[in-house]
């Protein structure tokens, strides 16, 4: 730095051409720190996880190599499949509802037809800032038939609303908590994408006499396809990883939530209550693979429509 400051114009151009000829390692100077930590907390655990899944702890003689035996065990494990079906059901019901509401609110905000638009935007986003623990405890209390809102309503009107924390309803109740937490976040992603649609497109549509719905269908939705695909992928990943909400609700609804309620909860229980680290790693890897495949397919389909 100091050396160049003293130097005249000509050496400066030399430095420039020098940097151009090998721009490479400068870039690594900036990305390097990220990649080192990334290798430690992402790549190494993934490699270790695969290693673990190929072994099994024996009663005598410690770990022994079992090949893919853990995987065949997991794929025929009814507990694993039950938990998988539960999150799959959660995915196909909760994600469309949440993204649908988020999209409608984003379109309403973007239409400029709302009174107090900023108040709407910031208020609906606020739940995102609430930790899953607080959100779950709060909804869990409100669900309570004893001192929650459901209990209040039952007392006041003499009704007998079903307990949201009963085994039949607990998945829907969790879906409601997750929707509450993330509807504003997704709304904001969609809204930000809508904001950058070029105004010339709207002017052209106006000249063509296109109505509101037609503008939404023909201009707005295609323009934010990227945001829609990304939000869908994040939501799919989130659904398959479902853990916090059922894990916290477990203390309020111990009978409705089993130790294998979701695949993640199953993997967690296997590790930390059962000490079955190898089998737990196997379950986690299978879920990781399924998630990646589905996320990839969604991305491909999203991109293909764009072409």
């Amino acid at each position, binding site marked *: *730095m100091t050396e*160049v400051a003293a130097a005249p114009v000509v050496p*400066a151009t030399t430095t*420039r051409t020098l940097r151009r000829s090998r*721009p*490479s390692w400068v870039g690594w*100077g*900036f*990305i390097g720190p*990220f*990649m080192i930590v*990334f290798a430690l*907390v*992402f790549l190494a*655990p*993934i490699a*270790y*996880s695969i290693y673990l899944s190929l072994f099994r702890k024996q009663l005598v003689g410690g770990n022994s190599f079992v090949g893919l035996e853990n995987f065949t065990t997991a794929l025929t494990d009814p507990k694993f499949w039950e938990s998988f079906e539960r999150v799959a059901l959660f995915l196909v019901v909760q994600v469309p509802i949440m993204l649908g509401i988020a999209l409608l*609110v984003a379109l*309403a*905000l973007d239409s400029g*037809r709302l009174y107090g638009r900023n108040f*709407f935007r*910031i*208020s609906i986003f*606020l*739940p*995102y*800032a*609430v*930790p899953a623990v*607080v959100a779950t*405890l*709060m909804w869990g*209390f409100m669900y309570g038939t*004893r001192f*929650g*809102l459901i209990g209040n309503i039952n007392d006041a009107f003499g009704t007998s609303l079903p307990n949201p924390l009963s085994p039949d309803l607990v998945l829907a109740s969790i879906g409601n908590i997750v929707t*509450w937490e993330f509807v504003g976040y997704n709304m904001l992603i969609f809204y930000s*994408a809508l904001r*950058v649609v070029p105004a010339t497109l709207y002017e052209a549509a106006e000249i063509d*006499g296109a109505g509101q719905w037609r503008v939404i269908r023909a201009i707005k939705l295609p323009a934010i396809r990227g945001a829609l695909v990304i939000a869908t992928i994040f939501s799919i990943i989130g659904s*398959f990883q479902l*853990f*916090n909400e059922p894990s*916290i609700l477990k203390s*309020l609804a*111990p009978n409705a939530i089993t130790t294998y309620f979701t695949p*993640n909860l199953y*993997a*967690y229980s296997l*590790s*930390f209550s059962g000490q079955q680290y190898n089998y*737990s790693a196997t379950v*986690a890897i299978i*879920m*990781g693979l399924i*998630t*990646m495949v589905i*996320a990839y397919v969604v991305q491909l389909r999203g991109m293909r429509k764009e072409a």
Partner: protein
Amino acid sequence: MATAESVQALRPARRRGAPSGLRASKKNHDARAPRKSKTLTLVTAIVLVYALLPLAWLVINATKTQPDLLGSFGLWFGDSFSLWDNIVATVQYDDGIFLRWLGNTVLYVVLGAGGATLLAVLGGYALAKFRFPGKRWVFAVVIGAVAVPGTALAVPTFLMFSKMGLTNTPWAVIIPSLISPFGLYLMWTFAAEAIPTELLEAARVDGASELRTFVQICLPLLAPGIVTVLLFTMVATWNNYFLPLIMLKDPAWYPLTLGLNAWNAQAATAGGEAIFNLVITGSVLTILPLIVAFLFLQRYWQSGLAAGSVKE
């Protein structure tokens, strides 16, 4: 259909009998700020109520004593207003463990979210403005890793850290928080838009070192993006539950989230004292800082998010 709508658009103007020039400008204005709709506002207000009602419930119930909590209507105040008593009880309970948890959370947020933002800013800048060998590879690996479930990493990370003697220390929570692939992506798209390449070339011609160019020229341009990434990594670390749940056994190192959960679970254990009023008041105290941060920094994170979504 097109004709019907243009006739409709013309009609009010004609009724007002405005001259054509004024009419055109009026219409143009309308296109930018359309008429407000009460119906649409009311329909959207349903979602607003859904978003705010639980928070209202939380705040109202933070003013109640334990008996009131059980005996009064959830969405209205109880017989006594004991918000202050509850706050005092929350911070004093168990020798002030709540303040200790608050301190831990701040520590994890400052080092975890601060570090994550720093790494994301540096990395995003590199991806946006430099060509370097293996760049495609870096990109593919990071994007691929986003799809890996956090819990798939949790068990092996725990086992690795426990071999390194890091579990049950703050490092076990801080180090994994340092990586935010979403932050990296956001900074990458933001830096690509915000920093003109000519500006970098001019700085190089003038002989500024790469570090100096970055600190003096690029950092100010990146400010809205940095605030955005900082806020989102702050939320992620402040709200983190799963990672500390696995890594920490000693309540003295708990963040607020784990502490609140422990207080809640206490009621279910045999002989445990039910302290729901403290759980609720503690929850209010936990979410307050983030909500304040989001409200005050609105301008920054919204422009940062908008720029981040330019590129798909």
